């Protein structure tokens, strides 16, 4: 049994800057029933006063209502514990209401999920604490909220200013969100966090996901295959997009041949190309440039124009150069042709390969084996243009009906043949030769003849 112990003033709090409450901790009671009294003095107020309300705020507390509360003045509080044996007084506690403001938590925190197309959002709404007076402008409340996902311990905090609502846009479906709100009055301390509120956002979006995934996978596969196809066919694609410009080509030169051929063949091809300028190539194209060989004069006059094209041209490739280079080009020869009498009507024109007179190089003849300088038999043909002439004198007794005598030259392309008279002429047979391009069959005779090697018999 003793006097009571010294009580301790714990602190005071004003929830709205209009009233305040103070609490104390009693000391030991000394085994006797002890009463506590709170006395205060106030700045600018004479006298000591006792607590006006011990009950409203609970045990060991003192509640100062509006009438007893003054802001911006200091209160000096003391608590006295007294029992039968003595008193005990706490240390003075200075308090200014301005400094002890701490509001209550916001009320009625509600969460609402808005399910929009792309992403849901969360709307939070609350009410200010009941006892604050914002209407008169006495206090201005500012709010703050914090959000937590599922069971994690990380809170995300957001300032809401003076609004009593807030929207969260980055919310994921299927997650439980926990929201708390607190507030402050002007520069006061923050209130406690409100009661937690939960909401779970539904998973309605999950159904759409597989479908979207499927579509995206299909499109990716399509892209990849298209890419592969393009890569495989890149050459043709390239040709289609950028068509190649045709390069220059030399006729008679097969570039592919040149690539694979050996050096001999290549040099042959090139040499051949050098010594024989491609004038004969020109002749190939000029299909009209035939030599029309016919017996009939009348046929000539009627059909000369038509028949221009009927004669097969590629009988013989002769070089006009050789023709021009002939030194012993005998004028007499041509004169002889003119003396040939006219043939009677024989309307069979030549459709086969026909031969033309050509002037050979006299220089090439060796010896005097060839009786007549104008004609020589060809021994063989090398390549396309080289003729190897026969030096021996060959005589054939028979007179095949293949041979004709040139009667006259009509223009540049028409040779009129004389109808043959077997007895007069000494023919040589060149049917022994195999017909090949160019068909050349000449004989050494003393008159100008055009030999032919017909495939079918003429008559």
């Amino acid at each position: 049994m003793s006097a009571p112990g010294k009580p301790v003033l714990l602190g005071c709090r004003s929830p709205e800057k209009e009233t305040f409450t103070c609490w104390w901790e009693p000391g030991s009671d000394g085994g006797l029933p002890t009463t506590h009294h709170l006395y205060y003095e106030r700045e600018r107020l004479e006298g000591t006063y006792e607590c006006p309300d011990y009950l409203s705020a609970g045990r060991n507390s003192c509640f100062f209502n509006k009438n007893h509360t003054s802001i911006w003045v200091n209160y000096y509080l003391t608590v006295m514990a007294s029992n039968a044996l003595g008193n005990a007084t706490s240390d003075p506690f200075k308090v200014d209401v301005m400094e002890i403001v701490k509001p209550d938590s916001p009320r009625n925190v509600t969460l609402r999920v808005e399910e929009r197309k792309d992403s849901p959002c969360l709307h939070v709404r609350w009410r200010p604490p009941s006892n604050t007076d914002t209407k008169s402008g006495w206090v201005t409340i500012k709010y703050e909220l914090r959000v937590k996902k599922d069971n994690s311990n990380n809170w995300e905090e957001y300032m809401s200013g003076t609004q009593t609502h807030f929207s969260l846009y980055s919310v994921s479906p299927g997650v439980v969100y926990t929201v708390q709100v607190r507030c402050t009055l002007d520069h006061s301390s923050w209130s406690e966090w409100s009661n937690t509120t939960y909401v779970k956002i539904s998973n309605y979006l999950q159904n759409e996901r597989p479908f979207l995934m499927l579509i995206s996978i299909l499109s990716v596969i399509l892209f990849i295959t298209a890419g592969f196809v393009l890569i495989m066919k890149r050459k043709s694609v390239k040709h289609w997009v950028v068509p190649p410009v045709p390069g220059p080509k030399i006729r008679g030169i097969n570039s592919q041949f040149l690539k694979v051929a050996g050096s001999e063949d290549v040099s042959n091809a090139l040499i051949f190309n050098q010594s024989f300028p491609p004038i004969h190539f020109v002749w190939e194209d000029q299909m009209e440039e035939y030599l029309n060989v016919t017996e009939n004069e009348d046929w000539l006059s009627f059909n000369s124009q038509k028949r221009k094209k009927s004669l097969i041209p590629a009988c013989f490739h002769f070089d006009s150069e050789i023709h021009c280079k002939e030194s012993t080009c005998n004028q007499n020869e041509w004169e002889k042709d003119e003396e040939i009498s006219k043939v009677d009507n024989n309307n069979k024109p030549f459709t086969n390969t026909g031969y033309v007179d050509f002037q050979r190089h006299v220089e090439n003849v060796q010896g005097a084996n060839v009786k007549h300088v104008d004609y020589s038999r060809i021994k063989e043909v090398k390549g396309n243009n080289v003729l190897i002439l026969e030096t021996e004198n060959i005589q054939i007794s028979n007179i095949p009906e293949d041979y004709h005598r040139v009667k006259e030259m009509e223009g540049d392309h028409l040779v009129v043949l004389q109808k043959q008279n077997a007895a007069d002429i000494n023919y040589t047979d060149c049917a022994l030769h195999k017909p090949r391009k160019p068909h050349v069959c000449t004989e050494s005779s003393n008159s100008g003849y055009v030999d032919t090697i017909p495939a079918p018999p003429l008559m």
Partner: protein
Amino acid sequence: MNGTFRSVSLVWVVLSGCLFFSSRRTSVCAAPICTNGKAGCHVLSLANLFDRVIQHSARIHGISSDLHSEFEQYFLPSKNQIGRVGRICHTSTIITPNGKENAQRMARGELTEVILKLLVAWRDPLWHFHQSMAHHHDFNNFSSNKALEMNDMVHELRQGVEKVAEKMQVQGIISNSVSSLASPEDLLPSDSVEWQLMKDYVLLYCFRRDSNKVQNYLKILKCRIVPDHGC
């Protein structure tokens, strides 16, 4: 040498010409006076003016609170050590409402006058405080800057509140009894003993309280006069 001298003088001439013309232009721009919704001139409403001065006062109170807590750290005066008798704020002679009801009951003109009195009363002490802060090497530049800022802002706030009062008088909200107030010397002579006794910490303590008063009174006034805007 001659060439450089000439070029330098030319540059100076050009610069001075530019400055002259620009100053002329700005002075010309500053000349037109806004009168009641002239085109191109934004006239502030009373609500806007109130919002601005309230924001200003909130900021002032914030700075004063920061400085006060800094001082507390430095000197560690126990809360109860400040004697009840010795300490007195020089503005305690000004009668101010000490609660919401009292502030609401006070007439608007009277309340405005109280605000202005408070602001005027703190002009010189804050300037002295700033000077003493500048010479004190105990405190960092941060505190010194805050003191200067506080000084300037109180000056601006007083001008703002005077404008508000003027506008209210024009609109007939308050009577013309709110006259241009007397200088603070009327409250306290500049070389008074109280000032010298007043230590910085006490000054900050008192100013923190008074800035909170000003903020609250302005808010009450605003919601009484223009209640629709955020009350």
